[in-house]
């Protein structure tokens, strides 16, 4: 049996919310999903039309499993768009979020995507600032042959939307748009996953067209470049500059012509990808990362150089991820002791975490070097898959520059 809430203050029986102006109530509805916002129409007469004046579409978690649910959902979105335009005369949309998963390709490609494209085309004409469209389709392999099953086409109208402040896309193909002269003058946050650009040059021009970018995440994107075009691309984009960039994260990203110096202003950098050498060219351009305090890097074979490039580094994480032993050994060089101790070890490095430790000699030497020289190091944490008693003993007798350093070995 439900206990009635007993409140002491008389105020709790008063309908305070209704004394708030419409604009405030709409502001509250803005933070709900569109489904929840529309449902408020039955709260009372006051609330019937309020959701019409909420200028976003917010569908953060949609699963379409049957034809019926696909049809119902599509109808719902169209009636929301229509009601807002006709009843409220609304032609502004501040934010459009759609994270949708289809149970099979037929639902996705035949019933879903053609409509999603239409909604995007409408949204970008309405001074859109935030766009997040994430697509997912299950059971793709079963029917792969019937569909152009790699990626739906992204409506290129997106690239004409100059009001965008944040863009988040997952699982699209980009083609049929000329990126020369392209600009997203207001874009601060960019998150791309499984987005296939037909030409790597298009991708580079796209990035170059985002001058005030602050947050960049790229994952699962691979560009294969022919040798001839590589030199050209490198030249063309050598001076790419992202002066406001604060955070950059690359996961499974292979792009040989992406200039590392474009990342020089970041405070947080994560490069977690097998093809790390493809992201960083050999050090013909030495970039100093003046603001970098947090670095997560897939295993690198020239740590001595990396440490020198990050004079203010505070937190370092090293991982191997899906490192295939053959590749590891190939990239394996003897540990090169730096000529002089990198600045970050002397003045800023506080924590160091090593993931997937193996018994490679050069790794051990890197760890010992850090322990011996990092003056203000607080923690050194090493994760290994199996017990490594020999390594353990070697590290525990290693002299430590920092008196307060805590060494942890975890399995």
């Amino acid at each position, binding site marked *: 049996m439900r206990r009635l809430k007993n409140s002491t203050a008389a105020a709790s029986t008063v309908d305070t919310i209704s004394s708030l102006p419409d604009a405030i109530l709409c502001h509250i509805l803005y933070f709900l999903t569109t*489904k929840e916002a529309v449902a408020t129409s*039955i709260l*009372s007469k*006051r609330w019937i039309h309020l959701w019409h004046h909420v200028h976003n579409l917010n569908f953060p978690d949609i699963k379409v499993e049957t034809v019926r649910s696909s049809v119902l959902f599509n109808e*719902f979105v169209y009636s929301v768009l229509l009601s807002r335009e006709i009843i409220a005369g609304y032609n502004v949309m501040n934010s459009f979020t759609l994270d949708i998963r289809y149970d099979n390709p037929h639902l996705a490609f035949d019933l879903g995507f053609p409509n999603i494209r239409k909604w995007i085309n409408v949204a970008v004409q309405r001074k859109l600032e935030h766009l997040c469209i994430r697509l997912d389709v299950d059971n793709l392999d079963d029917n792969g042959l019937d569909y152009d099953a790699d990626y739906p086409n992204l409506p290129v109208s997106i690239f004409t939307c100059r009001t965008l402040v944040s863009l988040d896309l997952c699982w699209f193909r980009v083609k049929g748009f000329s990126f020369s002269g392209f600009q997203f003058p207001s874009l601060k946050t960019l998150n791309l996953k499984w987005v296939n650009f037909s030409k790597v040059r298009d991708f580079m021009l796209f990035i170059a067209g985002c001058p005030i970018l602050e947050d960049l995440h790229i994952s699962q994107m691979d560009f294969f470049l022919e040798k001839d075009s590589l030199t050209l691309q490198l030249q063309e984009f050598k001076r790419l500059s992202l002066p406001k960039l604060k955070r950059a994260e690359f996961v499974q990203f292979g792009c040989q012509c992406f200039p590392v110096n474009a990342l020089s202003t970041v405070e947080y950098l994560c490069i977690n990808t097998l093809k790390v050498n493809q992201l960083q060219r050999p050090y013909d351009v030495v970039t100093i990362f003046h603001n970098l305090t947090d670095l997560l890097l897939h295993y690198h074979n020239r740590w001595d150089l990396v440490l020198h490039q990050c004079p203010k580094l505070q937190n370092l994480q090293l991982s191997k991820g899906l490192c295939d032993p053959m590749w590891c050994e190939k990239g394996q060089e003897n540990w090169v002791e730096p000529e002089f101790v990198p600045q970050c070890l002397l003045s800023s490095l506080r924590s160091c975490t090593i993931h997937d430790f193996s018994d490679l000699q050069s790794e051990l030497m890197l760890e010992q070097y850090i322990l011996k020289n990092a003056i203000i190091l607080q923690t050194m944490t090493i994760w290994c898959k199996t017990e490594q008693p020999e390594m353990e003993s070697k590290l525990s007798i290693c002299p430590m520059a920092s008196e307060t350093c805590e060494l942890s070995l975890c399995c």
Partner: protein
Amino acid sequence: MAEEKSQASSSKMLTLKASDGVLFEVELNIAKEMKTVQAYIDDCEDIETIPIPNVLGKHLAIVIEYIKKTNEEYDAEFEKQWNMDDLQLLLLAANYLNISGLQECLCKAIAKRIENKSPEYVRKVFNIENDHSPEEEAKLRKEYKWAFEGVDKD
């Protein structure tokens, strides 16, 4: 992002008088975050005590504290301390005083407390009286069918 509230740059103090008579002495640059108060100051430069007729002392204190401390961390924890009644009254205050950052924070907080709840629950929480006729309600439910599928009864 909160501005630096240093004593040295603007030591001029102002008094704000809440609806229940409670007085608050605040620095000028704090008071200026309340655009309503700013407008008051712009109109009468020499004013020393500004009446805030719509806000209780208890809530004005919270609002002033918010202005002084606001940042990402503070905002994330801020809303957890207040019950629904206080949240609504604070929102009324933030709206009257025209403090956009606080208003946004409170709207988000209230939304969070009613997300994925049934209309019955939301009515109870806000003390809203349902003045729809059963036919009207049924019509709305039918028109936007998808919106009413699978919601917590709570």
